[in-house]
């Protein structure tokens, strides 16, 4: 009887260890096979400006959790939720949400998400499904990179030394994937994962431009970290830029 109990315990322990060892594995998966034929890009464009009324100023970040981070920001650091010149809004992810047909092969260009000064750089970015994302630690302190997708696989990887990097590919479209650093809780970044190359992030002047868009009518969405999303129907013609500006305002 005791022998069977011992055997059962051993089997249970081995099973749990197996689960544990498999839990933190590399979740990068091959890009989803394209069902539709590859579509060509076009000569049109979607351009616009993100306006922002009654703006809330970004707030100071307390980096006391890590003295190295404090040392990297002698003049202090502020959040990047609301950035932009007067009346404009940066860090808005704008992309074609629907209306495209065909598939668009993933770009081989690497998108870099860097950890600099205990902040993610860029704060907001975009990537195609299957496009390589290089995540780098440029800081002289350790970070963990914790991605919190809902449609893709979650992962959490440590980068204890400066200049460490790893590559990751998302296999499912998802707007947006949040990245956080659990070591430095103020560190957040957002990445839009889309199945095509027609996206952009607004600059501090609020402007954005999506190039090489095929002629057609599309639903364009603008996403902001705290102000939510807005959509607009946009018709694009060949060799012309269609205007699509968005006006955001805080609830307060």
């Amino acid at each position, binding site marked *: 009887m005791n022998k069977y109990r011992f055997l059962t315990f051993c089997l249970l322990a081995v099973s749990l260890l197996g689960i544990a060892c498999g839990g933190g594995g590399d979740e990068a998966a091959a890009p989803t096979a394209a069902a539709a034929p590859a579509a060509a890009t076009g000569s049109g464009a979607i351009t616009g400006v993100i306006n922002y009324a009654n703006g809330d100023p970004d707030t100071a970040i307390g980096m006391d959790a890590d003295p190295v981070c404090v040392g990297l920001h002698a003049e202090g650091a502020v959040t990047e939720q609301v950035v932009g010149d007067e009346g404009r809004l940066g860090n808005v992810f704008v992309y074609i949400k629907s209306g495209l047909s065909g598939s668009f092969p993933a770009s081989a260009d690497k998108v870099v998400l860097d950890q600099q000064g205990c902040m993610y750089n860029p704060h907001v970015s975009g990537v195609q499904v299957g496009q390589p994302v290089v995540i780098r630690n440029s800081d002289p302190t350790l970070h963990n990179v*914790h991605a919190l997708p809902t449609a893709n696989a979650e992962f959490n990887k440590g980068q204890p030394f400066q200049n460490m990097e790893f590559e990751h590919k998302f296999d499912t479209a998802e707007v947006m994937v949040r990245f956080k650093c659990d070591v430095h809780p103020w560190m957040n970044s957002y990445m839009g994962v889309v199945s095509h190359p027609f996206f952009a992030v607004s600059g501090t002047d609020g402007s954005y431009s999506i190039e090489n868009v095929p002629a057609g009518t599309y639903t364009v969405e603008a996403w902001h970290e705290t102000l939510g999303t807005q959509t607009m129907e946009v018709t694009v013609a060949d060799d012309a830029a269609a205007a699509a500006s968005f006006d955001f305002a805080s609830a307060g």
Partner: protein
Amino acid sequence: MEPTSTHHRGLHRFAIVLVCCVILLISAGALVTSTESGLSVPDWPLSYGSLNPPSWWTISTVRAEHGHRLIAGTVATLTVILAVWIGVRENRRWVRRLAYLAVATVLSQALLGGLTVLFFLPTPVSVAHASLAEVFLCLTVTLAVVTSRWWRRAEGEPATVPGARRLFDVARVTTGLVFFQIFLGAVMRHSGAGLAIPDFPLVFGGLIPPAFDFPIAIHYSHRLGALAVTAAVVVTLVRALRLPSAAAGLRAVAVGLATLVAIQISLGAAVVLTGKAVVPNTAHVATGATILATSLLLTLGSWRSARAAVPSSAGAVRDPAFEGTGAQSASRATAQPNPSGGG
């Protein structure tokens, strides 16, 4: 029938040290959750691929998580040492088995801690980790109690303490309620429901929530649980205070238990009113563990005081130290052979 081995003071003191370390470990775990540092070290069993990640002491989040792991490793080591010590010195089979069970529990607990990190803190695993910690605490408290000189002396004494049985009847219920209350608290904590009811002592300005969802229900259950525990502790205290003066130790433990519960209610209020500030949030868990240990101590003590003594014909060997004059000999305990081979 079980033979009685002599008391070993060093072993008993080592067990007490282990209990203190376990409460420290639980407190460190509470600090991890209070500072949301659970995933600041993403790998397991190593930390950033090493036993000593760079600058871990200077970064508060990593210090909390890696420090918790280091304390856990220390506790596991101490538990193994205690089990080996008991295995060599102790001839009560059930005590030896209890020590081995403690080793199995602490190893399982480590595995749960690793799993919850690797799977990004799933609530069921985190709750199991928190609950098994309390089970492990109970095991170590029990080992500390049953290896005490008082416990062994009581085994050889024929008289029972009047009223101890009645105290035991309520104390065991109190201990069960405390454990269940801690379980509810763990569910609330790991499901992020700590502020689901934002006011205190009222509940959304009244006595009953106007609407229920899971966070509100588990939070409200924890508050009702606090009332139940408080009532049980009051009854326990009353019964303990009725014990004769010969049981002054049990009465003192009961007073300590009631005091801890009063502190705990204040800490619970502080957690809500400060929006889960780190210090009260951590202290609330640490005090909860201490309450459980104290209540279990009272339960075991009252049980031992109420239990009929083991007849001397069972082979009990009276230690001279029990007579109050031979304390030195107690530390030179020698294991007695176990003729029955049973526990």
